[in-house]
């Protein structure tokens, strides 16, 4: 039995046996809610490895595309710096910094370039959030 399966089994016990056996309203609700939490954790855990790999691959592709775009068409130094930090750190914090730099330099980038860079970044973020919704929704 995997860890995810263990959590899922405990969740089912909570939902089907423990929760219904509780008379008092508040602890009954808590038992059912604990089952929901464990089921979500179980699903998240089961998908974690695949999601980590896919998110990493997507981020690498994004960083490559940004690097190529920045070389093809020069950008303000703040944007270039944020792109370098993203390439080094490869994490959500740096991705947030990249987005802030884009918005802060929107006028200097021009609408077309800004939309292109933001749109490319959003493609990666959309794929990431769709994966999260697989276990959170």
């Amino acid at each position, binding site marked *: 039995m995997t860890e995810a399966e263990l959590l899922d089994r405990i969740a089912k016990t909570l939902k089907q046996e423990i929760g219904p056996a509780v008379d008092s*309203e508040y602890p009954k609700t808590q038992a059912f809610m604990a089952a929901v*939490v464990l089921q979500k954790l179980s699903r998240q855990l089961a998908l974690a490895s695949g999601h980590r790999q896919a998110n990493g691959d997507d981020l690498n592709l994004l960083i490559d595309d940004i690097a190529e775009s920045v070389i093809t068409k020069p950008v303000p130094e703040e944007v270039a710096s944020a792109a370098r930090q993203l390439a080094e750190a490869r994490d959500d914090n740096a991705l*947030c910094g990249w987005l*802030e730099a884009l918005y802060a330099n929107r006028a200097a980038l021009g609408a077309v370039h800004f939309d292109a860079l933001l749109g490319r*970044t959003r493609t990666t*973020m959309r794929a990431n*959030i769709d994966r*999260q919704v697989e276990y959170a929704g």
Partner: protein
Amino acid sequence: MTQAQTASPELRQAIIDYLATRLTNGSNFELHNIQRIAVGWSHETWLFDVRYSEDDKSQELGLCLRRDPGNALLRHLSDLEEQFRVLECLDRTELATPKAYWFERDENILGAPFLVMEKVTGSCPNPWGREGRAFYQAAAERGTLPNSFTTTLATLHTLDWRAAGLDFLDVPAPGTGFAQREIDKWRNLIESADYAPQPILTDLICWLETNIPPTDRLTLVHGAYRTGNLLIEDDRVNAVLDWELQVIGDPMYDVAYVLSDLNREGTSLLSNLVERDEFIRDYEAATGFTIDFETCRYYNALYAMRSVAFWMSAAGLYANGRSDDIRLARTAWSVPVVLERAATELGF
């Protein structure tokens, strides 16, 4: 989620002792029908009837007591004293609200600050439950309550808030002041939750700051105007409840909330109650305002930010041990769901 609980003998006695200090001509106080109604995750709410003697006559008063448990969601943004002051001010207007009686900050009285207000008659079906949805569906078919829902919001938006004394609520600067203040408020809550960085949230906040719609029309804004926050009696709104998120701001903020998909489930009826076209027609007729749908779209995105702030804050209360309520732990998985909605609002 609603659940009834009974009060401890100590709390009952403390309430009786307190009421004796307020109803000074009364004697022989007794509490009846006392129950705790837990709606949402905010302050404790107790409903009861107090019976007492005054001038040799038996008196009965229905009361609602809200107590600050010290760890409620949005506690620092939802001060009981402010709620009390708002209700006092609204009592001078034609908007249907509970009458506010007393506010006490002294924790020695009931163990925490509290306010006491009128227990208004009526029911408040939960729109997320099967029974509640059936209640609103039946009311929609009868047709009276939907109009009451809309005209009550119109009353809220057209009342003279300065004359009522509500200008203590921090009036925003004209133009972009209102939306900017909301963004700042929810950003502060997000930052205090100490959550992992969320790129879609960063995108959303940057987009919101870049696209603020200016507004020069300022009204009282409820902040959560929907079924479930309205007390219903005889197919009309008997009281507007849940005065926790009210601000002076753009009335389209409330309109966007009514128009959004957030507050309905399995139906096209707004707030499970009102036909969209009917709401728009009746609201515009009653207020004289024209609904700005582009601005409503902006506020929908702002509501996504607010929801993320709520859920991050709620999950944080459980994570850092300030609450044992597992419902709060569950909200950690609401964050990605709302962020997905935000991405859709932003067009990706």
